[in-house]
C-alpha cells in the first residue's frame, strides 16, 4: 500500500478533530510520515560526520553532557557574584552573565539615560572594577563564561581579559563566549550604538583578535533566540540566523583571514520553543545547512569550521504570567527537545520570569530540570535517538528547504546588511508575530491558562525584588572612581581608541589598554557614537 492509498482508503474512514494541524509556526503537518517522505537515509549520515545532521560530536552525550549554563545577573556585581557562586556550588558548570540595560547599551550607571534601569534586568558593569568584583574568587582559567552583550561587547570582552590578566590567566587560556551578534540586534533585539556597517567592522575586529590572541574564546554567538522571541517562525529563525552567520564569515574573509583560522570559534544560540518536533527538526536542519554552506561557499576544510555548535535557551516568550507553575512543565519539554536536537549548552528558564528576574528557588528547579533530563530519563544513552523517524527526517528536510529559500532571497538582495537596510527580516518577523497573536485571540492556537483553561483567581508566587537603593550606590561608586582615577591617562587611552576607529586598526588592543586605565563602558561607547554615528530605530510596524 502506498501512502496515498492509505490516506484515501483507510485514513478517510476515521474522524479528525476540528483543529488546525500545523506547527506552532503554522507549518502544515501531515497525519502520517512514511519512508516515502524521506529523501533517502544517506543524507542523514553519522554523528561527528559531515553534514552533522545527527550531531557534531562522534560520541555526543555519551562522551560529555551538555554544559548546564544558567543565565544570571542583577543588581550590583557583588550580588551576581554570589548568585554565580551559588550556581557553581549546585553543579552548574558554566557561567552566563546578564548585564543591565545601561551596560548593554553602552551607558555608565551615572548617565541620565540609565536612571531607573541600573541593575534591573541584569548586573551593572561600568568599569574594570565592576568586572573584577563580578568574578571575584571565580577561577577564570577553569570556568567557561558566556557574556550576553552586543553593541558594547568589545569593551566587556576587554574588561574580562584584563580581569583574567590580573588572575594570572593568559588570554590563550580564557574559555568562553560573547554574544556580539550585531546583525540580529537590528533585526530583533534592538540594542545598538552605531549603524550596521561600523557595527559589523567592530565585530570583525573581535573575530580577528580572538583568532590571533584568544583562540579558546568564541567571539560571536550567532543568535536565533532573539529573532524567534520577537515573533518569527521557526523557519525564519533558522534562515535569518544562518544568513547572519554567512555575513560575518564573509566580512572576516574579506578582512583577509583564512576561513579555517576563525570559523571553528564561531558558535550559535537557538531558541527552544514549545512545538516539540519542529524544534528538534530545526536544530538538525541548522547543522546540515551550516556544514554545507561553509564547505560550498567558503571552501572551509577544517571539520570544526563546518560544525554548528550551539547553546540553546527555552523560550522566554512561551512562559505565562498566569498559573506560573505550568511554566516548569513547558521548560522541561522545551529542554528535552533541545537535548534530543543535540545542543552543546543549555539554559532552562525559571517559572517566574514573566513576573520578575528569577528567585533562587525558581532557578534551582530550572537547573534540576536539566539534571533530571541528563541523569534520569535515559535520553542521553543513545545518540540522536529520533534520527530516522520519518516525521523528524521529513520535517528536517522541509525546514531546510524553506530556510534555504529565504537565504536565496537575502542573497538576491545583496546579503544580510542590505536586507536589514530594507527592513526585510524586520517586517517578516513583525508580520509573523501579528499572525500568531491573531491566531491566539481567535483560539486557533492555544496557550494553556491564558486563552484556555484559565482560572478566575490567580495564586501569587514569590518574586525577586531588586532593591532600588542599589542604583544610588552604584551611581555614587562610579562617580567616585571617575574623580579619583588618573584622568590624563584615561584621555590619552580614549584618544587612541578614537584613532583606531578612524584608521581601521584593530580596536581590541587599544580598548584593552583604555579599560586597564579605568576608562568606562560609557566613555568608550561615546567614542563609537562620535566616530561612527548613532543608529535610530526606523520604527517599522
Amino acid at each position, binding site marked *: 500500500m502506498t501512502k496515498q492509498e492509505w490516506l484515501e482508503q483507510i485514513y478517510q474512514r476515521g474522524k479528525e478533530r476540528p483543529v488546525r494541524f500545523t506547527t506552532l509556526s503554522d507549518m502544515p503537518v501531515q497525519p502520517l510520515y512514511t519512508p516515502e517522505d524521506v529523501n533517502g537515509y544517506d543524507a542523514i549520515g553519522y554523528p561527528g560526520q559531515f553534514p552533522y545532521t545527527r550531531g557534531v560530536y562522534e560520541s555526543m552525550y555519551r562522551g560529555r553532557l551538555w554544559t548546564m549554563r544558567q543565565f544570571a545577573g542583577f543588581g550590583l556585581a557583588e550580588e551576581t557574584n554570589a548568585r554565580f557562586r551559588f550556581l557553581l556550588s549546585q553543579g552548574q558548570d558554566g557561567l552566563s552573565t546578564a548585564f543591565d*540595560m*545601561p551596560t548593554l547599551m553602552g551607558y555608565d550607571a551615572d548617565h541620565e*539615560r540609565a536612571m531607573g534601569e541600573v541593575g534591573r*534586568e541584569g548586573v551593572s558593569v561600568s568599569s574594570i572594577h565592576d568586572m573584577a568584583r563580578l568574578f571575584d574568587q571565580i577561577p577564570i582559567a577553569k570556568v567557561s563564561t558566556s557574556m550576553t552583550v552586543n553593541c558594547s561587547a568589545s569593551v566587556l570582552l576587554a574588561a574580562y581579559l584584563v580581569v583574567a590578566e590580573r588572575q594570572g590567566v593568559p588570554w590563550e587560556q580564557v574559555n568562553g563566549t560573547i554574544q556580539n551578534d550585531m546583525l540580529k540586534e537590528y533585526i530583533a533585539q534592538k*540594542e545598538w550604538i552605531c549603524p550596521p556597517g561600523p557595527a559589523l567592522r567592530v565585530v570583525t575586529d573581535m573575530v580577528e583578535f580572538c583568532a590571533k590572541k584568544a583562540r579558546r574564546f568564541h567571539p560571536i554567538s550567532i543568535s536565533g533566540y532573539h529573532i524567534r*522571541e*520577537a515573533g518569527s517562525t521557526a523557519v525564519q529563525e533558522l534562515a535569518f540566523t544562518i544568513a547572519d552567520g554567512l555575513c560575518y564569515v564573509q566580512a572576516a574573509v574579506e578582512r583577509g583571514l583564512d576561513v579555517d583560522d576563525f570559523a571553528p570559534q564561531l558558535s550559535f544560540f537557538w531558541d527552544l520553543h514549545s512545538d516539540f518536533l519542529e524544534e528538534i527538526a530545526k536544530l538538525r536542519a541548522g547543522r546540515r545547512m551550516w556544514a554545507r554552506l561553509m564547505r560550498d561557499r567558503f571552501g572551509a576544510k577544517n571539520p570544526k569550521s563546518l560544525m554548528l555548535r550551539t547553546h540553546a535557551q527555552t523560550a522566554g516568550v512561551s512562559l505565562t504570567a498566569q498559573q506560573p507553575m505550568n511554566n516548569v512543565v513547558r521548560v522541561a519539554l522545551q529542554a528535552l527537545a533541545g537535548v534530543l536536537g543535540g545542543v552543546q549548552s543549555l539554559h532552562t528558564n525559571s517559572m517566574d520570569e514573566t513576573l520578575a528576574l528569577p528567585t533562587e528557588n525558581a532557578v534551582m528547579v530550572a537547573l534540576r530540570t536539566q539534571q533530571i533530563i541528563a541523569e534520569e530519563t535515559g535520553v542521553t544513552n543513545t545518540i540522536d535517538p529520533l534520527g530516522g523517524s520519518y516525521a523528524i527526517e521529513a520535517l528536517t528536510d522541509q525546514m531546510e528547504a524553506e530556510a534555504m529559500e529565504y537565504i536565496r532571497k537575502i542573497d538576491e538582495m545583496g546579503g544580510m546588511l542590505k536586507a536589514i537596510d530594507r527592513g526585510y527580516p524586520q517586517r517578516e518577523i513583525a508580520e509573523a508575530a501579528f499572525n500568531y497573536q*491573531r491566531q491566539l485571540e481567535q483560539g486557533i492556537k492555544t496557550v494553556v491558562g491564558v486563552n484556555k483553561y484559565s482560572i478566575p483567581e490567580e495564586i501569587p508566587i514569590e518574586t525577586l525584588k531588586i532593591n532600588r537603593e542599589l542604583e544610588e550606590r552604584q551611581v555614587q561608586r562610579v562617580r567616585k572612581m571617575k574623580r579619583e582615577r588618573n584622568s590624563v591617562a584615561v584621555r590619552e587611552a580614549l584618544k587612541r581608541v578614537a584613532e583606531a576607529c578612524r584608521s581601521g586598526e584593530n580596536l581590541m588592543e587599544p580598548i584593552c589598554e583604555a579599560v586597564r586605565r579605568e576608562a568606562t563602558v560609557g566613555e568608550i561607547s561615546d567614542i563609537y557614537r562620535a566616530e561612527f554615528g548613532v543608529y535610530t*530605530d526606523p520604527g517599522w*510596524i
Partner: protein
Amino acid sequence: MAKPGLDGHDRGAKIIARALRDGGFEVIYTGLHQTPEMIAEAAIQEDVDAIGLSILSGAHMTLFPEVMRLLKEKGVDDVALFGGGIIPDEDAARLKSMGVKEIFTPGASTEDIVKWVRENVQPRQ
C-alpha cells in the same frame, strides 16, 4: 504608541500599534529608546489624544510619572496615558492612583485594548 527606556522589547508595542491602526485609529509609533522628554515632545507635536507606553524593563515606576510630569509642565493635562508590559499588580494600582488611565499586563488581548481605547479615549478639544 511609545517605547521608553533602553530595552528593545518592541514585539508588543508593534502588535498593539498595528491592531489599533486596523481598528481605525491613526497611530504614531515613536520607535525604541525614547526618553520621557522625547515622548512628551512627540505627543505635543503630533497633537495626540492618547499615549500608550510599552515598558518591559522594570523601569515603569520611573518612566510613567516622568512622562506625566513633563506633559503637565508643558501645559497638557487632557491626554489619556495608558500602558502595558511586565508590571506587577501592586505597581499597576499605584500608577493608576497617580493618574495612569489603564495598565494592560501579559495575556491582555488586542481586542480588549482596542475596545478600551474606543470607550475611554475622547478626542481632545
